[in-house]
């Protein structure tokens, strides 16, 4: 009988496909489920929130492509498989995943930043830099450094945004959900950049990530009253 840890680390195509499929569908449902609210209000916060989940869905598409190639051709690093395909898919995965994080934090902070939409170009530039570094530097320390930077940045934004909301009477578990979303998103990114790092807890990461996306989808559907 296969030991549990080995079983968890060998999830196979089926589990990978279902995992990616569910998260892509959740993200797209959030994106399309909020379309009417945005079309009616043209509210920038809703726009950035929607963009974040559109970018999550695209990032997960590239992530699942990379995972498929790694598993199917039994490679440790996507850049070892085919320089062209590897660099292309990793570049896009890192760009879209960084932008998803930036858009979600921007949705919380845009009012504080006086609605200055030019800041978003700065985030695009930063996401491009992160994605280029990912393909040029094949160093685990650099990978950890980049992800630590994203985590610290997201943590700082949450802290500032949470402090702003403290005066409000309403209790909201949004920050706990977003916090978990970012931490487990970073785990998913590390899982691609350094495949062996989380091998033993891959199933755990997948289940928690699925749970987080499903909770956010539930909250969106509940609030939008989507059928």
């Amino acid at each position: 009988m296969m030991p549990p840890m080995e079983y968890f680390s060998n999830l196979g195509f089926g589990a990978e496909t279902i995992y990616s499929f569910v998260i892509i569908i959740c993200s797209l449902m959030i994106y399309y489920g909020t379309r009417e609210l945005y079309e009616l209000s043209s509210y920038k916060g809703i726009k950035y929130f929607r963009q974040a989940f559109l970018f999550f869905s695209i990032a997960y598409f590239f992530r699942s492509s990379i995972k498929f190639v790694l598993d199917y051709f039994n490679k440790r690093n996507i850049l070892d498989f085919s320089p062209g395909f590897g660099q292309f898919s990793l570049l896009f995965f890192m760009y879209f995943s960084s932008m998803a994080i930036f858009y979600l934090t921007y949705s919380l902070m845009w009012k504080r930043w006086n609605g200055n939409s030019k800041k978003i170009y700065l985030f695009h530039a930063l996401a491009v830099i992160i994605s280029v570094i990912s393909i040029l530097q094949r160093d685990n320390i650099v990978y950890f450094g980049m992800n630590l930077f994203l985590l610290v940045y997201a943590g700082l934004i949450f802290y500032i945004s949470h402090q702003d909301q403290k005066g409000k009477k309403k209790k909201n578990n949004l920050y706990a959900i977003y916090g978990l979303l970012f931490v487990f998103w970073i785990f998913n990114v590390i899982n691609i950049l350094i495949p062996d790092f989380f091998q033993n807890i891959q199933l755990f990461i997948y289940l928690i990530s699925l749970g987080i996306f499903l909770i956010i989808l539930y909250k969106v559907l509940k609030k939008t009253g989507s059928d």
Partner: protein
Amino acid sequence: MVKRGKLEIIRDMLYIIKEESNLIKPTPLLRKSNISSARSKEYFSELIEKGFIRETTDKKREKFISLTDKGFKFLEKYRTIMDFIDEFEL
């Protein structure tokens, strides 16, 4: 007095039109909106541009404002939009 947000002002303007049996002249609408003349004209143009209201002229060449279907939809969904913004701290 709490400062009204943009969406709230739009809701108020559309609500005034609806309450006037969906037909009101521009001047009373701008007066009842309770905002400065310059801003009310700005909002008025935006409402037309977004397709929330339409301007019609009768036989006496008098202008009237009425809500479009999209305008009614906005009023219907206003609470949902505000709840969503509140829920996700947007």
